[in-house]
Each structure stands twice: as structure tokens, then as C-alpha cells.
């Protein structure tokens, strides 16, 4: 069985290599090959899953050691895989949703002449993401970590001829690199502290520490490692302060947004923190930091989501905030890990579904993304409407749907952070977030599918007509919305099912928690107020949120051009000025720095050398003058020289 693990990665990797090196002759069948390999990987995953279920909780984890990677002295890095319940959860999510989105893309990218490459990139992403989640040491995880970064870079910038896309891709990669810095520093710290960075050893060592046993590691070290890991998570999962790239990442094709920037990659941070639970358990301060980051992002994303008119950006904001929930949960320790992962999975379903829905809408609307130019689409694309609606209900946590189960648990856990003020604060934040979520999702729903048509002829000036091949030949016409082809709707339906039932399924006598317990450990949260009260409160804020949204966008007609809006709204439209800050401080500052350095290098560093050369030249020129051609002056110098010679000799004797 173990030997199958490598196959998980091998299949999509093969696909990537073949598709990217294969050349044009693969254009015909490339997308099918890619999809098949993704599905194959999924099948392998399922097989392993069933095999895993066959064994009982403790020895479910599987290992496969391939070869020794970097052996240098004490530094022993291996290419080895570890498949335990946590990894398995991710494997299924990634390959499952991944396959669906492959299928979806077949239709969505139909008119793109570079579809083969697109699928190659998708397979590359799958491979990298799988390496990330089944690596058995941090360095190999790092490989996957940057691998998904690369895939995301390639896919965001897939339409490279759009400068905006290229810039967004670069931005994403750079911001992620900042996070990766954290990860590599964390690995170095682990190496210096434990002499290794394999999950087993590190976590065992820290585990021993936390249980007060032998081999004590200073809490400070653990905190440092924890914070560095958090930095990494922030980068990958678009958490404040490294969240700025996610919004721009929406430049990529919609399936990419669905798979990478909603369902899987952006959740890698959550995986990292959960995986490193033992370390965080030993470092409460680091945990607090995690919780704060989660809480802040939760609100940040939600607020941004409220203000965006671009449907994908609105969803991106929501993604941010949902991941905020997960991070928050992961920061809570054993009471949160399981719920974080659970929300991660359910979110994977409904957010992917929502994005695919959005994609379907855009597909029908000549790639219009401005929700103010939608309206009343429910008649024209019923399937999209239905699936999108279910996803909507799921995310706002409508009772009985997936989001309800997972998010409420997180809110409870937040209230249980500790039985003091903290519990109230973070519980309150989580609760508030639920309300805002309800508001902005309702807003999206209303603006898109209800109200009167506000369609505009495409293309509108600030968009490159040839931006998406689907728009070819539609230039300047009124959109005529239509339901998308089967290849696109089926995945949406499947995901809709997931977003409806997954949560309930997981919560049946806590099956999911039990499933994860051997890996993450689990304690029952003890909230500061009773659980029913929390549920009730959640329902209340939910209703309030929906109501406000209905009053603003349901009752009143939605203006096609956005009103100026309040200060907060305007700030939120610009990602709460975070980008402006980056631009002013980092970009401008950087440019000035480099420019001045270039100057310094040329004038100072180089100048010094050239200066010496020049000064020698000048000296030479002056000494030359002594050679004035007059024999008698030569004689003078001779006589003088002799005098000096004699004097010196006598002097030598004198002293």
C-alpha cells in the first residue's frame, strides 16, 4: 500500500511534464490527459483512504521513504512521504476538487489556444500541493510550498499579455516569498534546536517538552519557530499583513481562483499550523499571535468583501475572512484544530462552488465581472443560480448546511479560548464576522441574480477586448446570458451537494473529529457561555446581516455606477488602503533605494578606483614636466641627487 503514495504525486507530475514539454502535437488531447491523470490521482487517494479506514485509529499513518535527498553532516534531508489522517483529508480534498475543476476547465477554457499549457500548470499545481501535504519533513514540505507558489504564479499570469495579470502574478509570488522566508528560517531554527526537521522527530521532541518530559526546549525557541511558521502561513493563506496579493490573484482564470485561491492552496497555512500543533502547544504566545491574525483577517476580509463590486474580488474577500476563521481555530490549540480542518473542507466545497458559479456567470456575460452590471440572471442560468444559491446558504451558515456545522463550532471554540476576557473578545469577533458574512454574501446574491437587468454592452473601455478568448467576436454587443455547458455545470452540482451535506456528515457523532484526533489531539471546548446561546446569537446576527443586505440591495434598485459611498466603503474598495501603503512604502521606497544604489555603485565604489587611476595619471603628467629637455636642468638634478646621496650617507653615519 505504502508504495501507492508516491503515485499520488507521480500522476499529475507526469501530466505536467508531458503537457509542458510535449509541444503543439498534444493540443488536441492535452486537456483530456491532464484531467485523466488528476482523476487517477484521486482514485489512488480513495484507494489509500479505504485502506486507511481498514485499520484502527492509531496505526493509520503510512510512510514511504524514497531516497536520501541532501545528506550533509548532521543535515539529513530525505524525500519521504507520510500519509496520516490529516494528510489524507487534504489528499482527498485536493484531488477531488482538483479533478472537478479540471473537468470544469475543459469547457471554460475551450476557446483558449493555450489550453494545453493551462492543464499542464493545473497538474503541476496538483503535484506540488500533494507533495506539500504528504511530505514527512519540513524541507520537503517547503518544496511543495514553493511549488504551489510557482503554479499559482504561472496560473495567475496565465493571460500574460495582460500587464495586470503579469503584475498580479509577480506580486503573488513575491508576497509569498516573504512568507517562505519565515518558513525557511523556521526550518533553520528547528535544525539548530533539534538537529532535524522531520515531522516525527521535531514534534516528538516538542511533545515531550510540553508533557514536561525529557529534552526540554526553551519556550522562547518554540515561540520563535511558531511565529516564523505563522509568517509563512500568512503569506500562503493571505492573512493580514500579507493578504494583499489574493485580490489581484483574481486576474487568473476563474477555475484557478476556485481551485487554488479558494479551495486548496490558500488553506496550506492552516495545514502548516495544524501540522505543527505540537510546537504551538508549547508556545502560548505564538498561539495568541495566530489567533489575533486570524481574528483580524476575518474582519478585514469580510469588510473588503462588503465593498467590492467585482464578483470575484468580493468572493476573494470572503475567502480571506473564512480562512481567518480557520487560522483562528487553529490558533486555539487542541480545541480548534479539528474544526479548523473541518471548516477548511466544507469551505473547500462551497467556496469552490461559488467561484465556479461566478465563472459560469462571467462565461455567460462576456466576462463581465462587475456585479452592478448583472442582475436578474436567475431566469437565464437556473443551474448556476441553484448551485450558487446552495453555496451561498452554506457559507452564511444556514442551519443544516455545511457552513453551519463547521463555522458554529469555530465560534464556540473561540468563545472557549480561555474562560476570561479573551474568550469574549475572539468569540465576539467570530460572531460579528458571521453577521458580516451573511451581509456581503446576500449582497452578492441579490446583485447578481435578483433585481432588474443592468447589463451593459461589452467590452467596457478599461478591459482588453481579447482578454478572455470566450469574448472573441462578442466585442461591443449586449451580453445574452446562457447556461453553461455540461462540463461546467456538473462540477458545480457536485460541489453543491458537498456544500449541502458535507458538514452534517462530518458532524454525525463527531466522526470527523474522531478521525483526526490521533493526529491533532482534541479537547472539548468549554465556552464562556452556553453552546445554545452561541448558536442562537449566531442565528440572530445572521438574520440581521441578511436583512440589512436586503434593505440596501433588494428593496432599492442598485445603481450601475457605484455611489461614492462612505469613507469606510471607499477604503474597503481599495483593500483598506493596504495596497496604497505597500505602493508608497515598499514599491516607491524600493525604487528610490535601488536607483540611489546604482548611482552609488557607479560614482562611489567605481569612482574611487577610477579616481585613483586618474590621480596617478595626473601625477604622471606633473612629474613629466620635470623632463623639460634642457641638459643643464638634468645636470642640476644629478648634482642635487648627489648632494642628497652624500648627505644621506653622512647622516646615516651620524645617527
Amino acid at each position, binding site marked *: 500500500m505504502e508504495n501507492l503514495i508516491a503515485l499520488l504525486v507521480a500522476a499529475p507530475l507526469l501530466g505536467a511534464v508531458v503537457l509542458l514539454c510535449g509541444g503543439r502535437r498534444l493540443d488536441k488531447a492535452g486537456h483530456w490527459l491532464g484531467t485523466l491523470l488528476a482523476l487517477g490521482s484521486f482514485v489512488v487517494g480513495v484507494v489509500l483512504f479505504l485502506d486507511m479506514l481498514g485499520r484502527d485509529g492509531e496505526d493509520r499513518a503510512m510512510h514511504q521513504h524514497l531516497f536520501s535527498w541532501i545528506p*550533509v553532516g548532521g543535515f539529513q534531508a530525505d524525500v519521504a512521504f507520510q500519509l496520516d489522517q490529516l494528510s489524507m483529508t487534504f489528499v482527498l480534498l485536493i484531488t477531488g476538487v482538483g479533478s472537478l475543476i479540471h473537468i470544469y476547465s475543459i469547457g471554460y477554457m475551450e476557446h483558449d489556444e493555450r489550453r494545453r499549457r493551462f492543464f499542464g500548470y493545473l497538474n503541476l499545481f496538483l503535484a506540488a500541493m500533494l507533495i506539500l501535504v504528504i511530505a514527512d519533513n519540513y524541507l520537503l514540505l517547503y518544496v511543495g510550498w514553493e*511549488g504551489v507558489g510557482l503554479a499559482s504564479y504561472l496560473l495567475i499570469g496565465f493571460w500574460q499579455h495582460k500587464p495586470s495579470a503579469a503584475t498580479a502574478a509577480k506580486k503573488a509570488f513575491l508576497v509569498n516569498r516573504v512568507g517562505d522566508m519565515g518558513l*525557511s528560517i523556521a526550518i533553520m531554527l528547528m535544525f539548530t534546536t*533539534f538537529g532535524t526537521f522531520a515531522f516525527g522527530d521535531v514534534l516528538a521532541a516538542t511533545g515531550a517538552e510540553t508533557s514536561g518530559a525529557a529534552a526540554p526546549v526553551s519556550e522562547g525557541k518554540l515561540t520563535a519557530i511558531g511565529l516564523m511558521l505563522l509568517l509563512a502561513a500568512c503569506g500562503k493563506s493571505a492573512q493580514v499583513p500579507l493578504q494583499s496579493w489574493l485580490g489581484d490573484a483574481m486576474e487568473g482564470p476563474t477555475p484557478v481562483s476556485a481551485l487554488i485561491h479558494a479551495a486548496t492552496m490558500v488553506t496550506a497555512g492552516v495545514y502548516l499550523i495544524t501540522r505543527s500543533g505540537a510546537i504551538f502547544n508549547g508556545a502560548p504566545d505564538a498561539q495568541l499571535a495566530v489567533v489575533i491574525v486570524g481574528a483580524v483577517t476575518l474582519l478585514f476580509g469580510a469588510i473588503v468583501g462588503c465593498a467590492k463590486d467585482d464578483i470575484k474580488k468580493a468572493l476573494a474577500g470572503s475567502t480571506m475572512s473564512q480562512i481567518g476563521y480557520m487560522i483562528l481555530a487553529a490558533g486555539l490549540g487542541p480545541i480548534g484544530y479539528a474544526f479548523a480542518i473541518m471548516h477548511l473542507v466544507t469551505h473547500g466545497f462551497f467556496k469552490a462552488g461559488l467561484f465556479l458559479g461566478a465563472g459560469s456567470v462571467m462565461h455567460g456575460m462576456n466576462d463581465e465581472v462587475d456585479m452592478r452590471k448583472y442582475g436578474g440572471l436567475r431566469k437565464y442560468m437556473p443551474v448556476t443560480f441553484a448551485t450558487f444559491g446552495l453555496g451561498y446558504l452554506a457559507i452564511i451558515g444556514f442551519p443544516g448546511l455545511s457552513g453551519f456545522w463547521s463555522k458554529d463550532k469555530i465560534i464556540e471554540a473561540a468563545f472557549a479560548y480561555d474562560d476570561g476576557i479573551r474568550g469574549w473578545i475572539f468569540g465576539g469577533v467570530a460572531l460579528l464576522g458571521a453577521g458580516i458574512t451573511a451581509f456581503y454574501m446576500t449582497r452578492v446574491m441579490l446583485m447578481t441574480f435578483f433585481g432588474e437587468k443592468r447589463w451593459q454592452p461589452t467590452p467596457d473601455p478599461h478591459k482588453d477586448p481579447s482578454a478572455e478568448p470566450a469574448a472573441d467576436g462578442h466585442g461591443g454587443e449586449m451580453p445574452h446570458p446562457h447556461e453553461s455547458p455540461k462540463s461546467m455545470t456538473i462540477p458545480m452540482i457536485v460541489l453543491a451537494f458537498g456544500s449541502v451535506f458535507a458538514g452534517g456528515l462530518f458532524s454525525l457523532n463527531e466522526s470527523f473529529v474522531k478521525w483526526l484526533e490521533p493526529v491533532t489531539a482534541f479537547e472539548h471546548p468549554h465556552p464562556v457561555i452556553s453552546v445554545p446561546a452561541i448558536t442562537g446569537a449566531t442565528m440572530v446576527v445572521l438574520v440581521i446581516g441578511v436583512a440589512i443586505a436586503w434593505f440596501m440591495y433588494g428593496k432599492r434598485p442598485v445603481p450601475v455606477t457605484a455611489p461614492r459611498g462612505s469613507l469606510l466603503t471607499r477604503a474597503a474598495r481599495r483593500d483598506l488602503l493596504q495596497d496604497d501603503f505597500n505602493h508608497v512604502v515598499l514599491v516607491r521606497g524600493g525604487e528610490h533605494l*535601488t536607483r540611489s*544604489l546604482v548611482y552609488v555603485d557607479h560614482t562611489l565604489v567605481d569612482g574611487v578606483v577610477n579616481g585613483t587611476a586618474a590621480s596617478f595619471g595626473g601625477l604622471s603628467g606633473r612629474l613629466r614636466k620635470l623632463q623639460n629637455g634642457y641638459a643643464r636642468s638634468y645636470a642640476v638634478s644629478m648634482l642635487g641627487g648627489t648632494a642628497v646621496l652624500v648627505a644621506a650617507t653622512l647622516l646615516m653615519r651620524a645617527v
Partner: protein
Amino acid sequence: MSDVVNAGFPLLTATAAVPALGAIATAAVPAAKRTAAKWLALFFSLVTLALAVAVGIRFNTGAEDRYQLTESHSWIADFGVRYELGVDGIGVALIGLTALLIPFIIVAGWHDADPQETGTATDSSVAAGRWRPTQGFFALILMVEAMVILSFEATDVFLFYILFEAMLIPMYFLIGGFGDRAHAGSDENAAAQRSYAAVKFLLYNLVGGLIMLAAVIGLYVVAGTFSLSEIASLRASGELEMATNTERLLFLGFFFAFAVKAPLWPLHTWLPNAMGEATAPVAVLITAVVDKVGTFAMLRFCLQLFPGASEWATPVILVLALISIVYGALLAVGQRDIKRLVAYASISHFGFIIMGIFAMTTQGQSGATLYMVNHGISTAALMLVAGFLISRRGSRLIADYGGAQKVAPVLAGTFLIGSLATLSLPGLAPFVSEFLVLVGTFTRYPVIGIIATFGIVLGALYSLVLYQRTMTGPVKLEVAKMPDLKLRELLVVGPLIVLLVFLGVYPKPVTDLVNPAVKDTLSDVYPGDKTPDPEPEVAAK
């Protein structure tokens, strides 16, 4: 060990002699037979590669004696100079790198030295065929290869010094004589800049070399011999007593020369000019092959001859290396010229190498050695593709490009992989070495290690900015008709990329080769068998 081991076929000598002969043969080819000269040069470089492989096979990683395949003959007894050769793992790795890259350089520069129709063609002597640039070009490349390989093999300080200096001359003619034709500005302007770059290169390195000469003489006065092995035995038997200050002065003399060659901030300014003005293959020759002699020499000579002084100087050198890393990266961001950008990137990378060497840990030095190899390959890949790009558009300015990805996807793809290697993406070779260097530094000097980690962000910055500006965005008019990579060019880039991936996934062969040598070097600096690597707080289970 000196006299006993001359048994068997002098493989090391042969490895250096073959390209030397090749140089002579190539130079002798009559003017009309330009193509023949090219093939001849390629043939000899391939034979050299085969011999290098043979060296790698004959080299026994397990053996306990430090230098293998040794040869030793008396040469200038009066100066105490012997013709002593021998390789350790590091030497083997670098010889391999050199022998590997030269064929690619030759193929990549296939047409770089064809006489131009304009310019000198009118000159009578050209018609008379006395002026044979093509033959000269390839002959010089082979000559450089011979000297570099021999300098990796030399275990006699004087012999090394001679090669270290002598290799400047052919390099000088390569830079000054065969400039990049894609030059902004008039021809004479180009010629002026080119000879400026060549002279700058030569003078910087000559001054470094002369200062080293003083130190070499000083070493002889102190030690009375130039043979590494003898010096080692003298030190072991305690007969060699260097006064602390003497040792430090001598160390500085040596290190200065190597730091110029490497190049280390602030002695770096010759590199951008040289790489900018030279043709892409020659630029690769400079940064991927010749400069490695500098870093190699730090490892082989500075640490072995002056362990105490090396340890004494470490903090300063580490700081300089750190500056090189950040400074080089920042300047790379600020460049307008593709090749200068790559040059500054190389400066940043040399910073990493030097930092790894002087971190004085197993990881650091193994990483540094690995880095030399990987940097050689990755820079070669990036620079050569850049050269192909430049040769198509006839300009080195980044601003003149844009959207090339759409018209020449293969070229763009290879260029991207090159860039990714430069920013040391995991899975590609440079990542392994860079991470090893960082870890090795971090274990001993955490702060420096952390600051150096910023380098990976900056690396990503300049690599991606370069890719974005040249390859993406709307297609520029001049770029629109740009052809994709030809077969010859693909043959150059393809193998390099395969190597990058292979060494990124499975570097074990190289690390196994290098580790023992590094252990020996470290045991020079830290006498006794205690490992210099700091122990982790917690013993892993």
C-alpha cells in the same frame, strides 16, 4: 607524499593538456577553414569532458588520503616550486563543471566570432587572411579551460599563482577582442566601452594578483616551500610557526586577490562591465568558470594555509558577503541592461558562496561548493538564453523587449526556468546549495543567516521583474517577428535545464563527493577531530 606517487597515467595533466593542445590546433587552422576550427574546438572540449569524467570515476570518495591522482615533478627547485597536482572532492566537482560547460559555451558561441562584413573586412590583412578572429576565439576559450582546470588541480601554491595570473591574458583578449555585437550606440563607442571593460577586468585582477604575489613570496620566506602537502606536514609537526600578524598579513594578501576574482563587494565593479560588454558565452566563461577559481582558492588556500587568520577574519568577511548578497540583488533590480542584471545577480550569488565558505560549518562549505557548481550551470542557462534573445533583437536593454512569450514560447519557457533557478526555486539545483549555505551560516551566526534570507526575496524580485518586462505584456513591434529557439540553441539549453532539475532533485552524488574534502578543510581550521558544527540543543530521537 611528494615523490613516490607518479604511478600510472598522468590523468590530471592530460585533462589540462588536451584543451591546451586543442587551443594550439585550433589556432593553427587556416583562415578559410573557419567551420573546421569550430568543430575541432568542440571535439577537444568533448575529449576534455570525457577525461574529466574519467577523473570523477578514478576518484575514490572513500579513500583516506586527501589528494588523489597526485602527480609530482620537480620544476623550479630554486624557488622551491614543484609541479604538483592532486584533486580532492571539491576539485573534482569544479573540474567537472568546467569541462561540462565549455562545450556548451563553444556551441553557444558558434557564430559569435564570425568576421563581420562591415568594419575590418575592408582591411587588406583580413583579405590576406592573417587576421583570424574565429580561430582565435575558440583557441582562447580552450586555453582558458586548460588553465582553469590546471588551477583546480594544482597543489603547489606557486603553480596555482602562475595559472591564476596567466589565465587573465586569454580572458582579456576574449573580452576585449570579441565584444557583444548587440550594442546600444555607435561602433567606435562600443569598441571604447569594450576595451574599457577589458582593461578594467585585467587591471583589477592584476592588482589583486600582484598583491597576492607579495604574499606568495612572504609565504615562501616563512615556510620555505610552496607545496601544500609539505606545509601541512610542517604545520602538523609544529615546525612551521607563523607569527600571528604575519599569518594575517599573508592571508589578507591571498584573500584580496581571490576577493577580486570572486568578486566580493566592494571589489566587484569590474564584473558588470566585463559581462555586459563580452558576448554571452564569454560572460558565462567569466562568471561560471573563471570566477570559481577565486572562491575555490579561498577554500583550498586561504583556509588551509592560514587557518588561524581565516578564523580571525571571518566576521568581517561574512559581513562583506552579506553586503554582496543584498547589494548585488538590489542593484540587479535597478539595471536596465539584461546582461548587467545577470552580472549583479551573480555578485549576489558569490556573496552566498563566500558566506558559506567562511561560515566554517559542514553545511556551509558543502553548500558553498555545491553552490559553485549550481551557480555555474544556472547562470550558464540564464545567460546563454539571454544571449540568444539579445542576438535576435539586437539590443541589451530590457525596455526594448516585451511579450516575447507570445511569439517565442520555448525561448520564454527556458528563460523562465533559468530565472527560477536564479531565484533558487526548490526542485532546481540552486535551492539545495543556497539552503545549505543559509543553514550552515545560521547555525553559527543566526543574525547574519536571517538577514541573508532576505536575499531570497530580492532574488525573486529581480528574476521576476526581468521575466515580466521581457516576456510578458503586449507584444512589442520589434519583437513580433522574433523566431523561437533553433535546434543548436535548444541543444545548448536543454541539457543544462535537465541538469538543473536533476541536481535539484538528487544532489547526493555531488554532496557525497564534496563532504569528505570539506571535513578535511574544516579540520585544518579546527585542528583535532572535533566537528565544528554546533550541537543541537536537543538530540533528535
